[in-house]
């Protein structure tokens, strides 16, 4: 099979109420959907499987970064040529994920980041989220020297080459910034495309809190300076 194989990776922790819906949407735009059940205590894995996903399970919760790494590894084992990661909480639209994969299929880029901060959808993000995002971008730029408009986006795309070279060492949310560092380290060609975000009460209740943001920042600093 020499044709492109598009795989979507969804790291999920206790998202049983929404994961089925997210997976059913995602399977429409890819050849396979892998849900990494990150040690959920609810029926996340069962719901995802019932909706048509391949489920890989972490026996205990290891964080979004670790789950994403596992998902990307699993995707390469399935022979993926283009891989997209998306959030499990329903904030990303399947058509945007499809566009990220389309962009990778063109073959001239290694990494695609779906940015909530460019294009017509810009400005729909709640004000405090915009602020956190700016701080995340600034920190990412200062620490890793790459300027992006949405360093914390969960919707990303990787070519097979990037997936094979990727090596994430942080476990939690800080992996998004570490991922940007990988872009610089390997000299990957990066593009950002505008995406829409569906902010529901549910998806807003997930995500990072202020305290979580501080923890993330601290881990990034230790990753940068202590290795």
């Amino acid at each position: 099979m020499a044709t492109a194989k598009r795989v979507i990776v969804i790291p999920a922790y206790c998202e049983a109420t929404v994961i089925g819906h997210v997976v059913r949407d995602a399977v429409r735009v890819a050849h396979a959907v892998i849900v990494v059940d990150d040690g959920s205590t609810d029926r996340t894995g069962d719901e995802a499987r019932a909706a048509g996903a391949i489920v890989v399970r972490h026996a205990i919760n290891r964080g979004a970064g670790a789950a994403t790494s596992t998902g990307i590894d699993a995707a390469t084992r399935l022979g993926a040529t283009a891989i997209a990661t998306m959030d499990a909480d329903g904030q990303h639209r399947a058509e945007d994920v499809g566009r990220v994969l389309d962009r990778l299929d063109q073959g001239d880029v290694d990494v695609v980041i779906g940015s909530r901060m460019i294009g017509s959808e810009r400005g729909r993000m709640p004000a405090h989220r915009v602020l956190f995002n700016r701080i995340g971008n600034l920190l990412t730029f200062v620490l890793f020297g790459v300027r992006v408009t949405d360093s914390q986006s969960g919707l990303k795309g990787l070519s097979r080459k990037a997936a094979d070279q990727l090596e994430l060492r942080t476990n939690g949310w800080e992996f998004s910034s570490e991922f940007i560092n990988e872009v610089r380290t390997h000299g990957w060609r990066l593009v950002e495309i505008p995406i829409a975000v569906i902010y529901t009460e549910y998806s807003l209740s997930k995500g990072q809190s202020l305290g979580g943001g501080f923890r993330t920042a601290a881990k990034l600093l230790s990753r940068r300076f202590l290795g």
Partner: protein
Amino acid sequence: MNPIQVVLILFALFAWSRVVNGLRRGTLPLTPFLLWTVFWAGVVVIVVRPETTAAVAHVFGVGRGVDLVIYLALVVVFFLVFRLFARIEDLERQLTRFVRAQALKDLDKP
């Protein structure tokens, strides 16, 4: 002798008995055994004759012996906290590697 001195000496003797036990059972090598013996002997000396610390403190340019003990203790505690922190990070990484490998092994099964 104050009650606190008696308590501390008894504790030092108890701690040293554990060290001796370790040596007897072969779980503690000779060098750490000697180091711990010197340490607990030092504790007993300081407890019985606290003024000895003053002489040492004077050498280091610290006013009182008690202050020197507190400074040293703080340095040791900071160092131990750092070591623990690094060790926990390392364990977390190993745990993640294990959990991830296990998850992917399940994928390979039909």
